[in-house]
């Protein structure tokens, strides 16, 4: 039906589109109805498995929900007040912020260094690039398991290597996963290994889009390598840099699988991120109202970051 209408409108003339029968055209080929027809199937899927769960979280956050969802009492903002005053929530928010800043910071610096190195067209660099990219598509869960295995204090290879080069005396002098000061850092190591290749790939694409003439004029003016990196490369890939940072910040904040595989948030909650805490409260302890309130706060923050950065990007 919508198709026929479009034919009439577009076929009947050669100049300006004349909307007939009050049909509002959104573009030269689409009216509102065909937009809906195109969007609806995908929209239904998102409504069922994203929008509905989200609304359920919002709804539940205003209730005290009994175990197994039997019986609920409206409690207003009590769950939100509980969240903001809970020490665990504050601690886990802090862990999340540390995780995001450290992991994304290290990934950006390493990714940038790698991109600058590997953009050289020296012999063999293409192969090296391919191999460095190999963690790119590995499951976060597998990355967590691999690093848990390597950082183990009983049979981990990392401590053995550190001992061989003389940094530590015995293989159990660094308890990567069971020392509460190190557990979060260990998880960050796994994250860095997993996602630095992504950063590198983004930056490489950015660097390769810089026109050669910029380098040429810089070298005519006698710029050294460092100046070329700081004055030409970094300013010219700032767009890519910004996008990559936004993607990674949101992804790092949502990290779940790596933490779950390596520490499940332990020891003593020292590596617990918000995502893990919310999941535990929902799944294990059944405090649905409280957990939903935390989830809503968390999601609002993520969406706010997204929308603000999106606006900034559009203005560029």
């Amino acid at each position: 039906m919508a198709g026929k209408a479009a034919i009439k409108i577009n076929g009947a003339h050669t100049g300006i589109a004349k909307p007939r029968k009050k049909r509002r055209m959104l573009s030269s080929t689409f009216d509102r109805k065909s937009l809906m027809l195109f969007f609806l199937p995908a929209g239904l899927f998102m409504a069922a498995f994203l929008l509905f769960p989200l609304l359920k979280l919002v709804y539940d956050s205003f209730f005290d929900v009994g175990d197994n969802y039997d019986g609920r009492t409206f409690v207003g903002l009590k769950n939100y007040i509980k969240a903001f005053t809970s020490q665990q929530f504050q601690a886990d928010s802090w862990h999340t912020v540390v995780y995001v800043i450290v992991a994304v910071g290290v990934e950006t610096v390493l990714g940038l260094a790698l991109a600058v190195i590997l953009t050289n067209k020296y012999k063999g660099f293409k192969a090296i690039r391919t191999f460095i990219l190999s963690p790119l598509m590995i499951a976060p869960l597998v990355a967590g398991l691999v690093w848990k295995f390597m950082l183990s204090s009983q049979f981990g290879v990392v401590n053995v290597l550190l001992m061989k080069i003389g940094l530590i005396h015995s293989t159990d002098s660094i308890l990567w996963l069971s020392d509460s000061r190190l557990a979060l850092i260990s998880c960050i190591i796994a994250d860095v290994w997993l996602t630095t290749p992504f950063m590198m790939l983004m930056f490489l694409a950015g660097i390769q889009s810089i026109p050669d003439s910029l380098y040429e004029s810089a070298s005519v003016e006698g710029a050294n390598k460092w100046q070329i990196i700081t004055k030409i490369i970094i300013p010219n890939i700032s767009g890519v840099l910004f996008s990559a940072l936004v993607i990674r910040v949101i992804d790092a904040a949502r990290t779940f699988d790596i933490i779950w595989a390596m520490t499940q948030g332990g020891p003593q909650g020292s590596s617990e991120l918000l995502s893990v805490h919310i999941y535990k409260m929902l799944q294990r302890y059944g405090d649905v109202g409280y957990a939903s309130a935390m989830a809503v706060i968390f999601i609002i923050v993520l969406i706010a970051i997204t929308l603000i950065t999106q606006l900034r990007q559009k203005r560029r």
Partner: protein
Amino acid sequence: MFNEKFGRNRRDNVWIIIMYALAVVFLLGFIFPYLYMLFSSFKPSADVISVHPTFFPKSWSIENYLKVFQTSDIGKFFANSFIAAAVSTIICLLLGSLASYAISRTSLSKFSNFLLILVLCLKMIPVSSIVVPIYSLVQQFGFYDYLPVLCIVYAGVNMPFVLWMMISFFKDVPRDLDEAAAVDGAGPFTAFFKVILPVVTPSLISTGIFTFLLSWNDFLIALLLTSSEAKTVPVALSEFLTSYSLDLGPMTGAAVLFSFPVIILSFFLQRYLVSGMLAGSVKG
């Protein structure tokens, strides 16, 4: 800067040597974990949990792989993982490309912009927060541990990602194509399937690879929605390392089997991966 050859002057040579040294150090750092896992998987099970681990196996063995197949239904879990990822990818590509085409063509209208922002916001929702409501929804309808439902849930959860990626691809397709098709008498559906879709096939492949891997690599949704019949490989992997058993040997074997195809795939499909990543971000 980055194109000169060896030997122009000494400073350049020093620079080139530094570049090679750094590249090799990074290379070793990044492939070490993976190679270690690979070599460990070919050690006898007892050596994997030795307190004096070696990089290369002292004696080569496929004991771990045999154990994986003997102690678990790993073949079925691989089939489940593949079916769930493949079916959800097909659903996502079909429905997602329709929706994103329409949004890309109406991007000036307020309504279409609203849909775009909605999709973006849905894309940011952390799975760990919504997976429990999804679980209770699935439970309510009695579809727990049922593979077709896992496919559908993956399709729903990954849909915003597909839309976001495809919209930027469709924006690059000139509108003249649509208008030419419309002049020839094609409605939006015909124009889409006959004219637009063939043009964006490479983009569909990029998007398809990413969507497939999102489902293939998922752990949390499968953990909550499946138990035995529809269990996927990541869930099985995580079960090798519970507090009751520390079956590291078979775990390394299964992890290698699970990740190796993906790594090989990413070697060969790098071109698609790069264009996909850039579309998902920069132009968005």
